[in-house]
């Protein structure tokens, strides 16, 4: 539809802004990893059968236990005003908590239908919080009309910010963004070795035990898509540490170096602490060069991880960037990654999927990073693809995961080379 090519000042050639069909998940999808991360939290979507089906389709292929998420499906009676939505919610929440006495934090998650009919979930959350002892009820929107894929995590974490306890011995450093537990543990060890003792992670593994903050707390993003959370933390008086995202050997080291700089830790200390994992990551990446160096890569917009990933692919793997699409470009938050991108590439924000497919077909990149709906059809056209959702669900941050991340790009190419059928 209406595409605008705008000249950009910051040394990038062009930014293509498009508005057309977007082929992306909505923010509800974040529940899939958030409920695994916060083990005492339950996510109740107030939505339609579509929302329930989305969650099950995005998550169902990955897990199956009785999940810590569910959908309160709005029916005809609710729409016709025959049932009182608040009474219905109370009933459902009671039913849920009776079955899950281990739940300490309940998120009421808004959807497109709940927003269009203007169901006030924040009031419901306050009411339920007051009436149910021992359970905190929060709310945020994961709707597709408000949030794109990873923005759901942003909305969720943003609701946690006002609840962070404030104390003078609060954390010196707050790491913001859901990370796999293994990655979190690796980071904790490195922080300890650097001498940063009071480190908080948001989200915490138990939502009922949030990290405490103080006026001295500095925060850093471990995920690039947390614009609203970052805004609220800044509003609460916390200063943000700006860095590349902790992807790859270089990205991760720069991330730790920025933290050290902000916390007055001598650079030599960081150098010393990160030396061994850095070398390990770097030499593992060097081995990947043979498969990846010089190969062209195209990113469809998906998680907002695209720009940090593109930096990693170009600078640490020697790949050739073609188009790098992102659903939203929050310049300030990814300034360090953006500044390190090579020139001569197309950056696109937003999407018109049909036109973007046309561009992708014209370029015929060696590797296309795209959503699950596009991957097989593009493979059938002879392109090699990597499903972008795996880049969100797999631990890719940190030194020890640098090679895993490279492997996610390398494997489809190696496979294509191996198959002779």
């Amino acid at each position, binding site marked *: *539809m209406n595409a605008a090519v705008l000249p950009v000042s910051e040394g990038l050639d062009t930014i293509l802004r498009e508005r*057309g*069909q*977007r*082929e*992306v*998940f*909505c*923010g*509800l*999808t974040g529940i899939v990893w958030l409920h695994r991360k916060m083990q005492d939290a339950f996510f109740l979507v*107030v939505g*339609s*059968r*579509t*929302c*329930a*089906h*989305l969650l*099950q*389709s*995005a998550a169902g*292929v990955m897990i*199956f*236990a*009785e*999940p810590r998420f*569910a*959908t*309160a*499906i*709005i*029916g*005809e009676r609710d*729409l016709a005003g025959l*049932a009182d939505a608040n009474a219905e*919610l109370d*009933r*459902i929440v009671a*039913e*849920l908590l009776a079955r899950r006495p*281990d739940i300490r934090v309940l998120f009421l998650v808004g959807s*497109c*239908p709940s927003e*269009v*009919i203007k169901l006030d979930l924040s009031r419901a959350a306050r009411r339920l919080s007051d009436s149910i002892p021992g359970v905190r009820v929060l709310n945020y929107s994961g*709707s*597709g*009309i*408000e949030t*794109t894929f990873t923005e759901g995590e942003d909305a969720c974490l943003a609701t946690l910010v006002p609840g962070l306890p404030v104390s003078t011995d609060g954390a010196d450093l707050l790491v913001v963004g859901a990370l796999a537990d293994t990655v979190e543990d690796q980071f904790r060890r490195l922080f300890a070795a650097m001498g940063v003792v009071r480190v908080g992670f948001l989200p915490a593994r138990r939502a009922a035990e949030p990290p405490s903050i103080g006026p001295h707390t500095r925060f850093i993003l471990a995920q690039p898509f947390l614009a609203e959370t970052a805004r609220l933390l800044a509003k609460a008086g916390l200063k943000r540490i700006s860095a590349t995202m902790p992807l790859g050997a270089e990205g991760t080291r720069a991330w730790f170096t920025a933290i050290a700089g902000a916390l007055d830790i001598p650079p030599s200390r960081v150098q010393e602490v990160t030396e061994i994992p850095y070398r390990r990551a770097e030499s593992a990446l060097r081995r990947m060069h043979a498969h990846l160096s010089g190969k062209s890569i195209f990113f469809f917009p998906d998680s907002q991880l695209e720009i940090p990933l593109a930096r990693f692919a170009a600078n640490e793997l020697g790949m050739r960037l073609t188009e790098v699409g992102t659903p939203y470009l929050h310049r300030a938050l990814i300034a360090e990654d953006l500044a390190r991108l090579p020139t001569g590439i197309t950056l696109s924000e937003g999407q018109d999927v*049909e036109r973007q497919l046309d561009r992708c077909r014209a370029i015929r990149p060696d590797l296309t990073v795209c959503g*699950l*709906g*596009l*991957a*097989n*059809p593009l*493979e*059938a056209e002879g392109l090699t693809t990597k499903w972008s959702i795996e880049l969100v669900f797999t631990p890719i941050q940190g030194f020890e995961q640098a090679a895993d991340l490279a492997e996610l790009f390398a494997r489809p190419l190696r496979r294509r080379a191996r198959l002779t059928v």
Partner: protein
Amino acid sequence: MQLALWTYEGPPHVGAMRVAAALRDVHYVLHAPQGDTYADLLFTMIERSDRRPPVTYTTFQARDLGSDTADLFRAQLRDAAERFRPAAMLVGASCTAELLQDDPGGLARTAGLSMPIIPLELPSYQRKENWGAAETFYQVVRTLAAAGEMPPALDTRPSCNVLGPTALGFRHRDDVTEITRLLERLGIRVNVVAPLGASAADIACLPAADFNVVLYPEIARPTALFLERSLGQPYTRTIPIGHQATREFVIEVAALAGVDPAPGLNPAEGRAPWYARSVDANYLTGKRAFIFGDATHALALARVAASELGFEVVGLGTYTREFAREVRAAAASYGQEAIIADDYLEVEAAIERAAPEIVLGTQMERHIAKKLNIPCAVISAPVHVQDFPTRYSPIMGYEGANVLFDTLTHPLMMGLEEHLLHMFREDFEFSGDAVPSHLGTANAPASPAAQSPADFAESEPVIMAASWADEAEREVRKIPFFVRAKARRNTEKYAETHGISVITLDTLYEAKAYYAR
């Protein structure tokens, strides 16, 4: 509001997509927010479709609300018409757009497009996927079957249409091949298969057939009724799943076509009945089977299980409320009360109560059965990537009956193997915990103690009435694993009803005698 953890059916517009994706040259413009595009992956990932479903989503956002969502729809519609040039255009709304009341049908009619417009009114807050598929198919046929021109019939054989197969259907692709072969063998020409693989022009040719074969009533019944009413085309009632039902189907279509059924009655490939009568299959007698799925598959599989494999049906149910009456009647004939539910927890509870030895169900029941350590075969949608095998694997017709014999017996212990296990279970080299040799070690049953607490955290607390004396405990361990759980349960139930608090060796054998068939 209804609390849903997992659902058996998606929203009705996903049903519409299954029809649109099955047809060759239609396009569907769906007024929907961006997140609804997830539905594409059902087709491209689960079914491994090599093309995107022919759907354009308007992906309106909050900022569009109240101003120009209708404009957005019009613009996307025009773009889609121009880009894809479909032979017919389906238009409709998903759950969110339904609330906006932009009237996609009205907007499309005044858009000046050259192809036929098929507006879909699918009430999202009331109906579900299969209903949506059925309604869409009906609207497509109603619009296109009357419009087209019929080519003159050069072939004078009696002819039929095959109705119901869609994209993402459980084994639809292979069922169509199998049934088409069977019809050809009887000298009946297949005029059009629809919606799977049909073009808009093919739909226009539906009236040329003498009668209709309905393979999946959940999807094709409204269309078949319409064609019967408006064109006088009769349609078939028998679903050819299982050997006997296939024979009955042959007789039914032969009568409708006025041909001799004989060529379709005793084909050489009909091996399943002989396998069922062979002595090795003796062990299948009275195996307790729990069956759940869409109505068509659940009903057919209950019959196959009971009368073609000699199982005992200990539970029968469906999530297809539209066919509850039929399923209730069938369940009653097996002495059961039907489970009509779309809450998988309710189904899980029913399975636990019924304590079956095999579960025939959907992907949901596969997961439930895995958790409960009960063998399972998938016999119905909702589907999973595994339900689209590369090899030819119909479940309809005679070959389908063979496939079902294998599918329903494979998860169980093989006959001779079960006997050997009984004979040699005391042998020190032989472990009663052995899994069926063809299933490999990955499926080794975990002892209850080895199961992680998380697996149990979800299930109802078990009230432990009686405890096991050491000697009885040792004895029960000698029972091969695949009957051990049942023996344990029966003994505990016996102890409970007889007020026994400690289960001794005697209690064990008293219970065994008590429950002996």
